[in-house]
């Protein structure tokens, strides 16, 4: 399976990266943008998707400061990797 792990800063933790983006957008004329948060996206092929939660908890994220969500992603042809 090709998996996509979405990593977000936990709600309630100050996210200065998100705040910086939120401040920058109006400066470029993009008004009406709120609640910006910046996270990470990890894509990986796994033989055993059942092990993904453990991978998330032990290495891919720090559960104290980040939330994660696993999605199935479209398979990618070998040649494009």
């Amino acid at each position, binding site marked *: 399976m090709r998996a996509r792990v979405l990593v977000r800063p936990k709600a309630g933790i100050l996210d200065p990266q998100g705040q910086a983006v939120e401040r920058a957008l109006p400066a470029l004329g993009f008004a009406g943008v709120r609640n910006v948060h910046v996270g990470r996206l990890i894509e990986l092929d796994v033989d055993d998707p059942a092990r993904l939660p453990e991978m998330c908890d032990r290495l891919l994220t*720090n559960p*104290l400061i980040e939330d994660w969500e696993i999605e199935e992603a479209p398979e990618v042809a070998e040649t494009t990797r």
Partner: protein
Amino acid sequence: MRFGIVRFPGSCDEVDALAAASRVGDAVLLWHADHDLQGVDAVIVPGGFSYGDYLRAGAIARFAPVMAQVEEFARDGGLVLGICNGFQVLCEAGLLPGALLVNLSLKFVFRQVELEVVRGDTAFTNAGPSEGRLSIPVKHTTGRFYAPEAELDRLEAAGQVLLRYAPGHNPNGSLRDIAGVCNEAGNVFGLMPHPEHAVDPLGGSVDGLTIFESMRAHVEQHVLA
């Protein structure tokens, strides 16, 4: 008294830590891929960018072979000091509470800061001014100490906060101005400031020596005695 300083690929302060520890005792470098602590009496996990700090600061280094030995050493009550990246590694390894987040400014900070010694009766602070101040530099981008509110209350009540940034000196937005915390047993300590860079009058302050002298005193009184 012999200190062991772990060297990971990407460490950059291990030589300064070695030099600082050598002022108060013997000191050797420990290689990240070894399974051997060479019988040292205390371990220092130094600053730098272990394994490139890929993914998150300290996230990969915690799985280094030598870290299994460090964890066992810590479980057995051995003194472990984590400085900057070493602090991040020890948090990621679960040896210390909390986590370090990117500075509120999003910028690298490099400056001398004043620290308040919250407790002067620990293995890492006994040689310093009790409830006094230390002048020690910080240099980091990811140094904002974070733990959930309830955990912060617990850490303070349990006396695990050993150092705070003095008023006006918090360089990174650390919650409750926390600069250094220890584990429940008091034998593992991590801090963002760099005591190894404050050991010679030429550097402007020798306050960092306090940490190494405290560790030596503790080991001589409790381990080697």
